[in-house]
């Protein structure tokens, strides 16, 4: 089944390139490492065959609309005429969460809708490598083979099947909108929306006392080494100069001192409030597995409750933090 999905995908990409509808396709290709895929940038028809799509395609490709070379012509400091000439049309392969990020980028006027061709793809979730590694006691995996609701992992001297539901990312297991919200063409069959409630993993933390919650976050955030992988993986962290990098004024200390680190994470979460689509790219990018999810989910929940907005679902929406309603609730203000 996966094979035919890939064939359909290659066909679609090839067609877009031959008909010169796009100059560039952003997709996934095989990585030398097992259980990994790597983003690839295809400009020529002959390279289309390297495209893949499977359980390992974890990057949020919308990030590259902003952070790759093809984004350079959009920089405000380039001559506008040059910008128009170099404007390249991009075809991008988008899972549901990538598509939501693209919607946000269009809403925030970071990319032009007419420059982007979205190839939506049916996604049933992607692997959480930490969960896999934990369940295989960190043994080296050489090959894997997805079956219906199981994945067979093979290593040097072992073979083990793991249940798919045990090794999918949390953000996939609780995904409420598994089909792309916008697309120009769609690959595969739409995935039905019957999934577990998104906020489920959170309630536990919310029922704790202030002190216990603080302890939880103190433990989690202490693991952070300030590599900024979370920021770099995030499709919506696209500021030319990040506030954390500023030196005048210097808002954040540069060490891994706890309060500085936590201030950075809180600030990032507040900056993405009402824009974060919950793709989990920051969490997957983290080398030390800091659990940032509760912060994001909490804000997402609050935004939905207060302002009735979920990020990335519609191109006609107004981002909630860029507007207001005279009747917004203000029960917390004296």
């Amino acid at each position, binding site marked *: 089944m996966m094979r035919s999905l890939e064939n359909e995908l290659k066909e679609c990409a090839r067609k877009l390139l031959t008909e010169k509808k796009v100059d560039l396709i952003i997709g996934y290709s095989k990585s030398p490492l097992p259980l990994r895929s790597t983003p690839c940038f295809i400009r020529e028809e002959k390279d289309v065959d390297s495209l893949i799509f499977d359980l390992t395609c974890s990057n949020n490709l919308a990030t590259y609309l902003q952070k790759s070379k093809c984004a350079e012509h959009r920089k405000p400091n380039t001559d506008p005429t040059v910008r128009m000439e170099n404007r390249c049309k991009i075809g991008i392969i988008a899972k549901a969460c990538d598509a939501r990020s693209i919607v946000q980028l269009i809403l925030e006027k970071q990319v032009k809708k007419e420059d982007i061709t979205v190839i939506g793809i049916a996604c049933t979730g992607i692997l959480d490598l930490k969960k896999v590694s934990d369940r295989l006691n960190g043994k080296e995996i050489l090959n894997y083979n997805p079956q219906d609701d199981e994945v067979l992992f093979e290593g040097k001297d072992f073979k083990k099947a793991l249940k798919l539901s045990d090794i999918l990312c949390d953000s996939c297991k609780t995904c409420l909108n598994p089909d792309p919200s916008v697309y120009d063409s769609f690959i595969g069959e739409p995935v039905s929306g019957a999934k577990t409630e998104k906020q489920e993993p959170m309630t536990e933390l919310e029922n704790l006392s202030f002190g216990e919650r603080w302890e939880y976050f103190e433990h989690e955030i202490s693991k952070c080494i300030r590599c900024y992988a979370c920021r770099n993986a995030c499709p919506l962290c696209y500021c030319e100069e990040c506030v954390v990098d500023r030196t005048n004024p210097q808002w954040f200390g540069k060490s891994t001192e706890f309060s500085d680190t936590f201030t950075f994470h809180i600030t990032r979460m507040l900056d993405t409030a*009402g824009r974060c689509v919950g793709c989990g790219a920051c969490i997957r990018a983290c080398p030390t597995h800091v659990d940032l999810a509760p912060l994001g989910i909490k804000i997402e929940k609050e935004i939905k409750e207060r302002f009735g907005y979920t990020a990335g679902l519609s191109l006609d929406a107004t981002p909630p933090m860029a507007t207001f309603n005279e009747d917004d609730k203000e029960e917390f203000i004296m």
Partner: protein
Amino acid sequence: MSEHRKPNTEHRNWQPKIIAFLCNWCSYAGADLAGVSRIQYPPNIRVIRVPCSGRINPIFVLKCLQNGFDGVLVSGCYPGDCHYISGNYYARRKFAILKTLLEFIGIEPGRVQFSWVSAGEGEKFAQVVKKVTDDVKKLGPAKRFVKRV
């Protein structure tokens, strides 16, 4: 700066340090009125005047907590009274999210408080400061978010 960083916890007569961000057009004038009218209120606040409550970046609040303030008060014009028409409406949305997140990570609700005080409300300003000071006194010195240097 250094004196804010180390609250004197052992001292029996510990007094909280509270920072107050007041908007130029309403709350700052309200504070002025309280002073001119000789209304008594606790001397624990340090005032920073800002052009509008919309000027307040959540980072300001985080930095204050980090640098050792025991409480933060943010005050602006009533909705509809903003000198810049809509600054406080946007601010209200920001504050709602900030407040939720701070409470979620375990900062006690009394530490960071928000209020609307108009230029004519000297009495209300005094009451707000009294309430914030009392709340923060009950909570004791801030320890959780303070930068450990």
